[in-house]
């Protein structure tokens, strides 16, 4: 990356205050549960205490008889005949014939107060016939496992597969066996990762209103208001356009708020209660039992390597359960796991498996952390065995522009080599380590995503600009979009207001997911600003009586160019906007597309740990994230994404996990026992923003949100091996497991 390739920018790359900062430090920002309406009712949900049970009978009469109860619903209140993912969503919203996991909703109540709704829920009587359940993916894939759902397998599953396999895939190229034969060392191991939850601090919350006329409104914390609209209306059999969804500020999502869980319940209750608005707020326990989490995985990896570190062949076979519905990210895991490496011979096999757990949702780079844990751990062990430096091995095999990715497509401009070189040059790598300390390195990958995008920009009468975007601001995207818009228009950052708008205001937008908000909404805003500039140049040309082609836009003003240069003084955006009413009306710009030019992002992490050999407890001493951003529009929020991703990965590696009892009930559905990292668990997280601009974006953006959660899992496993000599192949690497591994190797 040569600095002089960069255009000089006035705003892009600076660190101004975020536009929503004041609201968020004063408590004024309104999140999902922060809004109320006249006549509002409160909802509560009854959930199954069983992992798998037939619902024999539900008696809601006592609840209905309680004063203040305005509506009680069960699955009988939902339309029938849905198919495919619509049916899955409906079934997950409210159990039908069977409860499929601990926490599966079976009935819901709306009443005049929260306490009254909770009382009513306790009066609902459900008779269950408890059925055999299965939790672990390796148990669920057995031929004789309890069957979660007959006929759930799609056409990819060959005849004769175990009953809970619902999707099967195999792909690759070359000849892996020949590759292994070429190798000086072939190693094969099995790795397991447990499900983790996105762990956003804001529980799901919404207020829904639906009339008998089929028209409804919803206020909801979500990453994607159009997804909420589409899914709620599908589940309830409504016309999509009749539901208007307004996104609240969002208290974290990480992929977990890209879908619906309980939102249709508030609408169905509202309709039954005569159209009164109904507020529904999940408890933390509801969140952990019945939303999110990510999949759990069991993974076999086999790799061949030459003495010099060249990878000659690689094979991955992954089994993942994503709950009681199809949709584990086993495909993504396979696509990402070898993505950093140039491979002639590679083979992937994947199984999507059902189990009695909640329906998994996307979680930051879905699938990629699990695959990386397996592959990057094995590569590290092989480097140790062969005495090859792990960074040099990665550089030797690193993919570059034009290479064919392990999963098929040809890479455009990518920055893996630059990322690895920046890692190698970082001073953290030369800090000496003490006893019981170890350093671990791992790489990671995420594709990044484009998605349906619709943006509208309007110039106001005073020459400032408003941008309407459909991607909720989950970590500073208002700031980055304002920076790019202001840069393009040549006006101050403060003169742009970015609004996250409701579904009635724009065409369809996919959620803020796939690290796409700054890439896609940003790109669309820049194009929209370009349209507004063209129109402003035209207005100026009209006034000057010259050809619009002879006008250029410089520093927020139209000025005559070419032969006309200097003939008229520049006309500023404020001057043009001030009289737009008499020069042709409002000036705006729109852009709707699925933007092309997505740029992938590679990262490399280096972690130093210390392990207490007597208790197995791992302390993170220092942590380094190096990642290619393409270009950092607002570097502070890019760093924030790197640090946040690393922290979530550290949690996943060390202590976070879904823990089930023999009865199939989730045992740790509170933050006390679902152990996300606390402030005192972590050191400062060092970051290096590598900038290999993405040619597919006007300002070089790649998308930075997701790659950072991928390397911590293997990096920490690699560091623990160096500190203790023990290799952990199963997450979480909690103290009992680490201590047992130390003892097993005779430490």
């Amino acid at each position, binding site marked *: 990356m040569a600095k002089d390739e960069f255009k000089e920018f006035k705003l892009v790359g600076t660190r101004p205050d975020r536009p929503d900062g004041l609201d968020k430090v004063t408590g004024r920002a309104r999140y999902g549960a922060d809004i109320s309406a006249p006549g509002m009712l409160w909802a509560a949900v009854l959930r199954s205490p069983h992992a798998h049970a037939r619902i024999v009978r539900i008696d809601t009469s006592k609840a209905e008889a309680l004063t203040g109860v305005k509506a009680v619903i069960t699955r009988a209140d939902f339309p029938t005949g849905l198919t495919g993912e619509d049916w899955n969503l409906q079934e997950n919203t409210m159990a039908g014939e069977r409860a499929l996991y601990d926490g599966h909703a079976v009935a819901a109540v709306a009443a005049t107060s929260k306490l009254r709704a909770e009382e009513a829920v306790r009066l609902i009587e459900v008779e269950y016939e408890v059925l055999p359940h299965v939790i672990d993916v390796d148990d669920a894939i057995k031929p004789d496992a309890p069957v979660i759902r007959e006929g759930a397998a799609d056409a990819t599953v060959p005849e004769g597969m175990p009953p809970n396999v619902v999707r099967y895939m195999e792909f690759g190229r070359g000849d892996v066996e020949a590759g292994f034969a070429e190798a000086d060392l072939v190693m094969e191991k099995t790795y397991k990762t447990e499900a983790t939850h996105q762990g956003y601090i804001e529980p799901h919350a919404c207020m829904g209103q639906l009339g008998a006329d089929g028209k409804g409104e919803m206020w909801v914390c979500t990453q994607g208001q159009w997804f909420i609209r589409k899914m709620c209306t599908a589940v309830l059999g409504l016309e999509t356009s009749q539901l208007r969804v307004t996104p609240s*500020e969002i208290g974290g999502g990480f992929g977990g708020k890209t879908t619906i869980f309980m939102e249709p319940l508030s609408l169905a209750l509202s309709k039954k209660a005569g159209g009164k608005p109904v507020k529904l707020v999940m408890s933390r326990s509801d969140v952990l039992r019945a939303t999110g989490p990510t999949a759990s995985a069991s993974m076999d990896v086999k790799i061949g390597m030459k003495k010099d570190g060249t990878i000659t062949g690689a094979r991955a076979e992954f089994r993942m359960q994503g709950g009681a519905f199809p949709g584990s990210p086993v495909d993504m895991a396979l696509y990402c796991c070898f993505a950093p490496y140039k491979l002639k011979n590679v083979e992937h096999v994947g199984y999507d498996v059902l189990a009695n757990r909640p329906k998994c949702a996307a979680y930051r780079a879905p699938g990629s952390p699990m695959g990386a844990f397996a592959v990057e751990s094995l590569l590290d062990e092989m480097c140790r065995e062969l005495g090859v430096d792990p960074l040099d091995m990665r550089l030797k095999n690193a993919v570059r522009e034009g290479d064919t990715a392990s999963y098929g497509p040809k890479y455009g401009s990518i920055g893996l080599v630059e990322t690895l070189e920046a890692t190698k040059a970082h001073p953290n790598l030369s800090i000496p380590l003490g006893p019981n300390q170890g350093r671990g390195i791992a790489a990671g990958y995420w594709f990044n995503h484009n998605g349906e995008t619709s943006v509208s920009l309007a110039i106001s009468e005073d020459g400032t600009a408003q941008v309407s975007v459909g991607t909720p601001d989950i970590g500073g995207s208002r700031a980055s979009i304002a920076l790019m818009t202001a840069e393009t228009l040549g006006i101050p950052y403060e003169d742009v207001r970015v609004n996250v708008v409701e579904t009635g205001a724009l065409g369809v937008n996919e959620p803020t997911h796939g690290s796409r908000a700054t890439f896609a909404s940003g790109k669309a805003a820049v194009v929209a600003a370009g349209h507004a500039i063209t129109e402003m140049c035209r207005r100026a040309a009209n006034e000057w009586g010259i050809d619009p082609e002879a006008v250029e836009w410089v520093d927020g003003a139209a000025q005559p160019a070419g032969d006309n240069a200097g003939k008229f003084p520049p006309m500023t955006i404020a001057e043009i906007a001030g009289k737009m009413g008499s020069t042709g009306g409002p000036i705006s710009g729109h852009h709707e597309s699925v933007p092309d030019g997505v740029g992938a992002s590679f990262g490399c992490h280096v972690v130093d740990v210390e392990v207490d050999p007597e208790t197995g407890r791992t302390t993170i001493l220092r942590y380094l994230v190096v990642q290619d951003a393409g270009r950092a529009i607002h570097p502070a929020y890019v760093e924030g994404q790197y640090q946040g991703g690393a922290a979530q990965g550290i949690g996943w590696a060390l202590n976070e996990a879904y823990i089930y009892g023999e009865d199939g009930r989730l045992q740790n559905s509170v*933050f006390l026992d679902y152990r996300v990292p606390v402030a005192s668990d972590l050191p400062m997280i060092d970051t290096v923003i590598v900038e290999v601009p993405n040619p597919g974006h006007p300002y070089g953006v790649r998308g930075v949100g997701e790659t950072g959660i991928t390397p911590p899992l293997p990096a920490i496993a690699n560091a623990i091996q160096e500190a203790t000599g023990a290799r952990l192949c199963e997450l979480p690497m909690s103290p009992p497991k680490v201590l047992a591994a130390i003892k097993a190797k005779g430490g």
Partner: protein
Amino acid sequence: MSKVHVTTSVNGDEVEFLADPRETLLDCLRDHIGLTGSKEGCGTGDCGACSVTLDGTLVCSCLVLGVEADGKRVETIEGMADGAELHPLQRKFIEHAALQCGFCTPGILVAAKKLLETNPNPTEEEIRYWLAGNLCRCTGYDKIIRAVMDAAAELRQEAA
């Protein structure tokens, strides 16, 4: 189910409300007097998003009953700025990009303010342990800790 009449001071204003004795102070702040700046992230005292001070002591308002606030002084995020002038911690959080989603921010600010009143010159480690009961899932805490240290330095300078 009889409700209890509660008279309390919230951010210096006298406030009265009727509380069901089962309702938490957090419920009362949010649902009875419209102060929704304090957030519920867990309801079990594990996340700190509902942090307020009660007679000057830092507490989780989800672990205090509304009726217990009778006759006491409650300070919430809504009372942190002095009119239009932000508390230095609030300003430093914006400057340092110490928030992403912002949901944990009110609780962290209330807790950090109490820390700096108790210990004007905390070390990084002291800040991390003081804030261990305030979960943030977005930031990895790095920028939060830096913002608190910077605000502390500014407050010390003002005091000097």
